[in-house]
């Protein structure tokens, strides 16, 4: 083993300075010949004869030098380097293949790498804190429901804080999103956290200015204080160094700024404002707010297992029976990030699945490139005949072809990595919209693991697109005898395998086409037919009370009344959340299957549906009695019925939320809710299941939507005037048109639609390129035969039938198989849930489109066939 290690070292050293080794070796051979010659002269030979004998005994100097060079350096690296250079030259020559193949590979590898980066980043548990991997979360796991309760009651927190020995700085936090008014501006969606002072000690990050929160701040009756983040300091206080001691209004309460945290600090998730969390029993007074996310740091020397054992010993305190019996709950200690995102586990098999998915995505473009490479390889048979004559083995030629495609795949890999670097963050936000803004430890930069994944995908791509066709081509030549390669009639055939491959490709293209078309229709239909609402007529805003908010409800009702009577305003409605901005929560349907359904929810006033002009499909709208105590009616949209209830008649079914913690400023109402009405999806692009509850008491601040058919500009002015007229402390915020909001949301869908569209077009183009290549080769191979047939009187029509007949075989086989797969896939995929919209007879229409695309691809070679000059063909024959 040691000898092998030394050999590798020596070879690398000699590879890096080949000239020195050569000179040394030459000098040694000279010395050898000199000594041998003198020896022989001493033994009585003439000098001439001695020199000749010495050379004979030594052997061929040139061969020896070559052999020594091979023994010293890394000859395969030099060979690969040469192959690489040749590969680059071939890429320049076949620029069409380079462009189409490289682009397809880059996009596919980029997609695979992005998925891998997202997994790697999200599942990564290492926090960018001092010894961040020793920060853990403590939570409870429901053994019966198999779900994690991220938050734990505060009594358990207090007990753990007092008793646990394997962890220190046991901390609690509750995220909230308050409206904040700072000195230089207001923002109604600041990510903030109520957090114990111990969390700052746990994080081991010093404030930029002032101090962190301290235990005294948590005392009942202590002056309200806040620590602000770097961005809030920049935006709300213009980076004023004298910010300490200034006031900041959080929700309705003024707080004193006591510290500013440094740039990039977003602990515990992505917060930029921190207030003390009162964990004493008095602080639990607010309903629904007695739980918090608990986390701690392992003490030096402690392990996760030891902490788990200790926490298991202490167990959980008995709980309210309604929340689940304690017997079925067990406390768990998990890495911090895994505690916040329990749905993402760092299982290596998941990485394997992602890699496999990337590999599967690579197969269609690579199979196409393989056809093109095969076609190119057979045209280069003269070159390979010469190389074979010079002693190159079949393996050598296969490696050369593999390296040529590897050069292309490597370039595509690098481009894919750049794409992943650029887009994985955006892609992550697209697939995980709830993760915005992102946790502070996630930056979605490709890691070493991603680079390795890309390298693996590039090698795989080169193997499929380079090695497979090379083996096929050289195998055929080997059977024909390599020496016969110079003969133009040998070897250049595209056999049954490629016909089968083309049929497969047509089938696969057709298989995805209907689903892709429905997705595209779903995404672009609202753009084409419009949102289904006159969005330009709607103005949205929120109203908030500065200072004492006890009169807010009364003022809100009065503002709505006054605005409704204004000229140019046809209706005003209030809701807890704005249309298109509804939060979502897990729900269950009474008597339904226990599956993870999710729905958006909103609380609205009685005029809501009337103002938006929404059509009722079944049931009724809210009436005055629905806003009274003890009533829990709910109105759902069409998507809710199709996706969640799954039955035509949803009226009377009851639904409840699995958790009633607030996600933004509103919490899903507890208890069972009975469906009393079903409305059409609105706007038409909204296919999220949505539930509307009667707004019994407006939250503060509340959102208003004003319908102003004659223009929203004057309506905005009237809203401000009404608000200031009612109370000088009533403020109007976030004025914007629904039109603007709607198209902003649509731009995201458009991006997704363009991606689906691009992939569909690439798949179709590849099918076309594959068929074109096959037919072009058949025509090139048979041009003499076609020419002779033309000379013998065959009509162009007969020639065309022959050509199209040959292409029809893979097309028809592919179309039949593709239809079968498409029907299966189409019924299995959740197209409607993903935003698609069904199109009647889409499968036969797609098959027809595919056949048209195929015939278009044959048109070029067919045209070439009927233009073959019979006299030229006869002359060559």
């Amino acid at each position, binding site marked *: 083993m040691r000898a092998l290690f030394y050999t590798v070292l*020596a*070879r690398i050293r000699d590879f890096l300075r080949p000239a020195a080794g050569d000179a040394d070796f030459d000098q*040694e051979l000279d010395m050898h010949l000199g*000594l*041998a010659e003198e020896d022989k002269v001493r033994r009585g030979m003439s000098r001439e004869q001695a020199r000749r004998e010495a050379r004979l005994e030594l*052997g061929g100097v040139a061969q020896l030098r070559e052999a020594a060079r091979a023994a010293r350096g890394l000859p395969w690296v030099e060979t690969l380097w040469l192959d690489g250079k040749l590969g680059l030259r071939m890429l320049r020559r076949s620029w069409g293949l380079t462009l189409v193949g490289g682009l397809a590979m880059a996009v596919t590898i980029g997609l695979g790498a992005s998925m891998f980066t997202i997994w790697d980043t999200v599942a990564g548990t290492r926090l960018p804190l001092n010894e961040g991997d020793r920060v853990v979360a403590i939570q409870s796991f429901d053994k019966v429901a198999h779900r994690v309760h991220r938050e734990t009651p505060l009594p358990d927190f207090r007990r753990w804080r007092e008793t646990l020995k394997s962890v220190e700085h046991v901390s609690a936090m509750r995220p909230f999103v308050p409206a904040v008014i700072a000195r230089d501006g207001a923002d109604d969606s600041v990510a903030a956290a109520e957090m114990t002072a111990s969390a700052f000690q746990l994080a081991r990050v010093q404030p930029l200015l002032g101090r962190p929160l301290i235990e005294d701040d948590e005392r009942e009756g202590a002056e309200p204080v806040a620590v602000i983040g770097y961005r809030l300091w920049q935006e709300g206080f213009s980076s004023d160094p004298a910010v300490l001691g200034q006031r900041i209004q959080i929700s309705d309460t003024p707080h004193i700024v006591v510290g500013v945290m440094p740039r990039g600090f977003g602990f515990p998730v992505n917060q930029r404002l921190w207030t003390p969390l009162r964990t004493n029993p008095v602080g639990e007074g607010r309903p629904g707010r007695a739980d918090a996310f608990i986390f701690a740091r392992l003490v030096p020397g402690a392990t996760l297992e030891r902490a788990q054992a200790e926490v298991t010993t202490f167990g959980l305190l008995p709980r309210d029976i309604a929340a689940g019996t304690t017997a079925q709950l067990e406390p768990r200690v998990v890495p911090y990030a895994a505690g916040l995102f329990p749905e993402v586990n760092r299982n290596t098999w998941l990485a394997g699945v992602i890699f496999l998915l990337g590999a599967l995505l690579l197969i269609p473009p690579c199979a196409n490139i393989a056809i093109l490479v095969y076609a190119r390889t057979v045209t280069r048979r003269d070159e390979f005949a010469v190389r074979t004559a010079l002693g190159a083995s079949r393996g050598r030629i296969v490696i050369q072809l593999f390296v040529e495609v590897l050069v292309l795949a490597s370039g595509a890999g690098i481009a894919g990595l750049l794409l992943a670097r650029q887009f994985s963050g955006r892609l992550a936000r697209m697939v995980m919209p709830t993760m915005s803004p992102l946790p502070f430890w996630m930056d979605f930069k490709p890691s070493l693991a991603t680079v390795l994944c890309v390298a693996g995908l590039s090698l795989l791509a080169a193997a499929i697109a380079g090695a497979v066709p090379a083996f096929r081509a050289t195998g055929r030549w080997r059977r024909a005898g390599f020496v016969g390669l110079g003969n133009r009639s040998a070897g250049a055939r595209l056999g049954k395998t490629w016909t089968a491959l083309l049929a497969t490709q047509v089938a696969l293209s057709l298989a995805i086409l209907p689903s892709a078309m429905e997705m595209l229709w779903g995404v672009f239909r609202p753009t084409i037919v419009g949102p289904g609402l006159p969005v330009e007529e709607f103005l949205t805003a929120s109203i908030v009370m500065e200072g004492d908010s006890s009169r807010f409800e009364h003022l809100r009702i009065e503002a709505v009344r006054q605005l409704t009577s204004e000229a140019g305003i046809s209706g005003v409605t209030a809701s807890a959340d704005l249309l298109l901005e509804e939060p979502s929560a897990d729900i269950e349907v009474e008597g339904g299957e226990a599956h993870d359904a999710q729905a958006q929810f909103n609380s609205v006033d009685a005029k809501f549906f009337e103002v938006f002009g929404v059509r009722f499909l079944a049931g009724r709208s809210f009436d005055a009695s629905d806003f009274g105590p003890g009533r829990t009616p709910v109105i759902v949209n069409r998507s809710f019925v199709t996706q969640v209830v799954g039955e035509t008649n949803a009226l009377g079914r009851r639904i409840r939320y699995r958790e009633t913690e607030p996600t933004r400023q509103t919490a899903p109402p507890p208890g069972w809710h009975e469906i009393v009405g079903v409305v059409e999806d609105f706007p038409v692009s909204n296919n999220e299941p949505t539930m509307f509850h009667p707004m019994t008491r407006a939250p503060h601040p509340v959102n208003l939507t004003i319908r102003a058919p004659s223009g929203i500009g004057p309506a905005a002015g009237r809203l401000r005037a009404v608000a200031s007229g009612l109370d000088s402390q009533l403020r109007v915020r976030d004025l914007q048109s629904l039109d603007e909001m709607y198209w902003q949301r649509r731009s995201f869908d458009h991006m997704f639609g363009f991606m689906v569209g691009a992939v569909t077009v690439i798949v179709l183009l590849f099918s076309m390129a594959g068929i074109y290549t096959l037919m072009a080769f058949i025509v090139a191979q048979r041009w003499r035969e076609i020419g002779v047939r033309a000379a013998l009187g065959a009509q162009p029509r007969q020639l065309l039938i022959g050509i199209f007949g040959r292409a029809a075989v893979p097309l028809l086989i592919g179309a039949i198989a593709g239809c079968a797969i498409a029907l299966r896939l189409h019924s299995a995929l959740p197209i409607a849930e993903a935003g698609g919209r069904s199109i009647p007879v889409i499968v036969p229409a797609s098959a027809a489109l595919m056949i048209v695309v195929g015939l278009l691809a044959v048109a070029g070679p067919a045209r070439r066939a009927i233009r073959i000059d019979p006299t030229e063909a006869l002359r060559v024959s």
Partner: protein
Amino acid sequence: MVEPRSAILQGTLDLMVLKTLEQMGPLHGYGIARRIEQVGEQAVIVNQGTIYLCLVRLLQKRWISAKWGTSENNRKAKFYAITTAGRAQLKAETENWERISGVIGRVLQPGSGLPAEASAKAGS
């Protein structure tokens, strides 16, 4: 027709070179080649050039070391010497060689192809 000289077995050249250096002390390439020819009494074919390829291999494995010096007739020459690792390797290889050659010798002796009992049965 009987070959008067036989080609040396693959891998045994390394063993011969190591043994030569152990016995003779530091030698240049030509000296090693001459010594092997002398000891082999011209019975084995050693293409002298292959000695240098063998020396490259042994140097890479650090079983021998090399140093430039002056030959007996005042020519600049590279002298090779066996290292401690080389001696250990030589010992192991020699034992292995003796064991294998012993086995092969016994197999090739007349009548040794069958066990004694089987031979007796065959005879009866």
